[in-house]
């Protein structure tokens, strides 16, 4: 006889199950519709090419590449997802057999898939759920909440799996199923019933009632999905698909002249993606764990921000967002994007934060002290460094660098940036870089007094209007200069000119000085040095996470003969220095972000802390000094020191 089992064994009126099933479909459908209604009020954005989006969907949703970054719970999550996927297929097979009369529940397929594999899956699911419960309630990590749905969801899943196994075992026990061994969990349980001398009639009654219980529980659970965080099963992949697939800005450049509202203060001002995000959050807390604002005790948790907005969307969708998100929260963000990098479902926190800042800054004139002065400085003087008595060219006095003159060609343009020109610490780095370029015999030019702020601090502060004016002016000027390439030492300028200026018609070849110097080392235009000190490298957020430049600065350090020790958090997982999002211009209360990062750097035991951003340079200098540690230098300073000392020796 072919191995098989009787479908709906011992369940006479099983057709009644279509009544609760219909209810399930209605409740589920209504739940989805309710969410969809909120999403549909968002601003629509064109999707653009689909390939990168699909690629990301495969990596992040299919392979769950971000989920597994957290080893234990990551694999448990994958196990649970795969297990339920398989169990779902198993249930479909039952459906094919009974409702469509396809005799699939037999033979080897029945034995190895429907019996054995599904038992493995069920068991794996139980183990994964136990891991989750143990982590949340045993280890009690900070990022996870412990409210009753947090318990109820995994617990009911556990009950569904356990009752499933019980049903299986009772059937095997009562029918003396000859192929019971393939369902090894059920089989083991069945022998337990034997040992307990459970009577067959009693087993039949228990089986029948348990079957209905299992069914109703599973249906209720399914019906609850659109009403709970489990909805991420659907919204997660959707959010991943809709997320910005490149490393460009992720911020839109609205036409302010025609916008009915500047920035976002209502759900309808956010994009569809923003609204899907709210329902995609799994409350996993990964974003909160990596957030520098949260770590330094500021009133911002990216997770809570999403949850507060979700709550707002579900309970008072037509009220102003200001009710949900306080200014202190909004302006605490450094825009470091660590949260976005960590989020397994590609929720984009920064565009929402900036959109809301835009409203506060532009419609209400609310920008935190310090930052407001910086923004005003950009407006009045073209740079944010209020009080600087330097001019755009003071830093290069005596170096012999040419200022570009209209009508002349330009090969390599050094975009110095406001920090390099006006900040005393960054000026030194700018000089070192200029010296390196000159020593390569490069005909570098600068824009000098024609250079003006890229507008980055204004954009991050929400002053999009001023930003767009700066952007347009700079793009026009750069198009007029038409350099073959632009080199900049500021990752924020890089991000602007290379990525965000695209919305204003820019298409320039722009490289960060780390990239330029590492190429020069490879091609031998700068000779390598040896005998450097022990160094650790701090990845600037706008260089690493935003622009994916991770290796180049390390190659420069290697070329300078330095001996690199990494900090625990580096590369795209780097931890912000605390300067981004306008914080470079604000007074930060203790505990300060830069102290946290500086401690990490000092703890490596390095003699020199290297970085590649003028803002990081200042923040890390302050922090490292307070932590009683090493010297902080830009990679250009380190390389120039090493190279020039070799020159002297030669």
């Amino acid at each position, binding site marked *: 006889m072919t191995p098989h089992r009787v479908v709906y064994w011992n369940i006479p009126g099983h057709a009644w199950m279509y009544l609760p099933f219909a209810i399930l479909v209605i409740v589920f459908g209504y739940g989805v519709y309710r969410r969809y209604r909120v999403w549909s009020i968002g601003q629509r954005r064109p999707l653009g090419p689909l390939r990168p989006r699909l690629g990301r969907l495969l990596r992040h949703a299919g392979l769950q590449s971000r989920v597994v970054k957290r080893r234990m719970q990551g694999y448990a999550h994958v196990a649970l997802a795969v297990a339920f996927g398989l169990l779902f297929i198993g249930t479909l097979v039952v459906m094919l057999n009974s409702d469509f009369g396809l005799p699939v529940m037999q033979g080897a397929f029945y034995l190895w898939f429907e019996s054995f594999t599904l038992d493995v899956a069920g068991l794996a699911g139980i183990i994964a759920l136990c891991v989750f419960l143990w982590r949340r309630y045993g280890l009690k990590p900070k990022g996870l909440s412990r409210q009753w749905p947090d318990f109820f969801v995994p617990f009911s899943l556990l009950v569904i799996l356990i009752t499933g196994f019980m049903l299986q075992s009772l059937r095997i026990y009562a029918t003396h199923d000859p192929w019971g061994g393939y369902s090894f969990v059920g089989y083991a349980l069945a022998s337990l019933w034997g040992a307990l001398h459970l009577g067959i009639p009693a087993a039949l009654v228990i089986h029948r009632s348990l079957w209905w219980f299992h069914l109703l529980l599973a249906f209720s659970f399914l019906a609850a999905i659109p009403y709970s965080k489990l909805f991420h099963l659907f919204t997660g992949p959707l959010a991943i698909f809709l997320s910005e697939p490149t490393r460009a800005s992720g911020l839109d450049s609205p036409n302010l002249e025609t916008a009915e509202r*500047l920035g976002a203060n209502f759900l309808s001002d956010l994009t569809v993606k923003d609204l899907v995000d709210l329902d995609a959050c799994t409350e996993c807390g990964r974003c909160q764990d990596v957030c520098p604002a949260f770590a330094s005790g500021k009133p911002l948790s990216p997770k809570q921000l999403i949850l507060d907005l979700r709550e707002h969307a579900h309970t008072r969708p037509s009220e102003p967002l200001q009710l949900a998100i306080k200014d202190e929260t909004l302006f605490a963000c450094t825009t470091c994007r660590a949260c976005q990098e960590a989020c397994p479902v590609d929720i984009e926190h920064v565009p929402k934060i900036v959109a809301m800042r835009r409203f506060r800054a*532009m419609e209400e004139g609310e920008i935190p002290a310090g930052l*407001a002065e910086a923004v005003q400085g950009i407006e009045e003087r073209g740079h944010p460094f209020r009080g600087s*008595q*330097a001019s755009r060219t003071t830093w290069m006095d005596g170096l012999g660098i040419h200022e570009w003159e209209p009508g002349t060609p330009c090969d390599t343009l050094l975009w110095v940036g406001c920090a390099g020109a006006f900040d005393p610490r960054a000026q030194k780095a700018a000089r070192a870089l200029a010296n390196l370029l000159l020593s390569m015999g490069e005909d570098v030019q600068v824009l000098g007094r024609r250079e003006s702020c890229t507008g980055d601090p204004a954009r991050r502060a929400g002053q999009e209007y001023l930003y767009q004016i700066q952007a347009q002016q700079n793009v026009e000027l750069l198009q007029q200069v038409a350099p073959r390439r632009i080199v900049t030492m500021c990752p924020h300028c890089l991000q602007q000119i290379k990525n965000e200026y695209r919305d204003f018609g820019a298409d320039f070849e722009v490289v960060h000085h780390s990239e330029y110097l590492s190429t020069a080392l490879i091609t031998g235009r700068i000779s390598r040095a040896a005998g450097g000190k022990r160094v650790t490298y701090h990845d600037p957020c706008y260089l690493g996470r935003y622009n994916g430049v991770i290796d180049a600065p390390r190659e420069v350090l290697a070329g300078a003969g330095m001996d690199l020790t990494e900090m625990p958090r580096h590369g795209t997982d780097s931890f912000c220095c605390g300067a981004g999002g306008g914080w470079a211009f604000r007074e930060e209360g203790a505990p300060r972000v830069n102290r946290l990062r500086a401690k990490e750097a000092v703890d490596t035991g390095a003699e020199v802390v290297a970085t590649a951003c003028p803002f990081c340079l200042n923040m890390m200098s302050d922090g490292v000094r307070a932590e009683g540690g090493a010297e902080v230098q830009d990679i250009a300073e380190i390389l120039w020191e090493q190279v020039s000392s070799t020159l002297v020796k030669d």
Partner: protein
Amino acid sequence: MRAIAFVKSILDPEAPPGAIRFDAGKALGDVPQVLGPYEGNALELAVQIAEASQGEFRAVALGGPEQEAGLRKALALGAAQAMRVDVPSGFHDPLDTARQLKAAADALGGADVYLFGRQAGDWDQGVTAGLFAGLAGLPLVPLVQAAEVAGAGLKVRREIAGGYEEGEIAVPCVLSASNGPGTLLRLPKVKDVMLANRKPIELRAGAQSGAGFRVSDLKASVTSRAGRRIEGDLKAQAEGLAQELRRAIPGIGGGA
């Protein structure tokens, strides 16, 4: 209440030394034109008074096109009207300035409160508010650090040696604004800036009067000290500085 703020724009007073050249009686330089900081204080008071009394304020400046910086800011902050008395840029006799501002104010229908900055950072005259009050026969409150509407008049806070004095004054009156807790200029809302950029600035032909002060010479003043630097690491610098302080101030703490 109706207020008029006189808003003068000047070459950025925070420009680095040397950025402004003095040549043939003129100040020149590749330096932005900004609203003078004390004029900013006056503007802030105008906004507050108009808001609190549900009244309105207007803005007037005298000079060339360079004066638009301040007038635009005033419009962005809600000025009902902005007027420029068109005279050539550069030095202008203070009494004549006050006269022409008075005529412009009268043309705008006058006001309950006339607000000036205590001193404009170009020619540092610091007399326009007083001259205006003298010409108009109105009381002048010098160096106002805060003002609020109190009944039909104002409650003001003015600077005096070592502190401040508070009290009430009836309108009409003239205030010269200084920096203080109640006069820090707010940021305009961007929406309003955008709208302001579309509003007109009225031009009023300035009268030509030959009388009064004339610049006969303008030159940069040089005062510099041969400074010595204390070099070394932080510790060395601190010790050097402590030594220097001990030498200069006999009898301070720790040894010597």
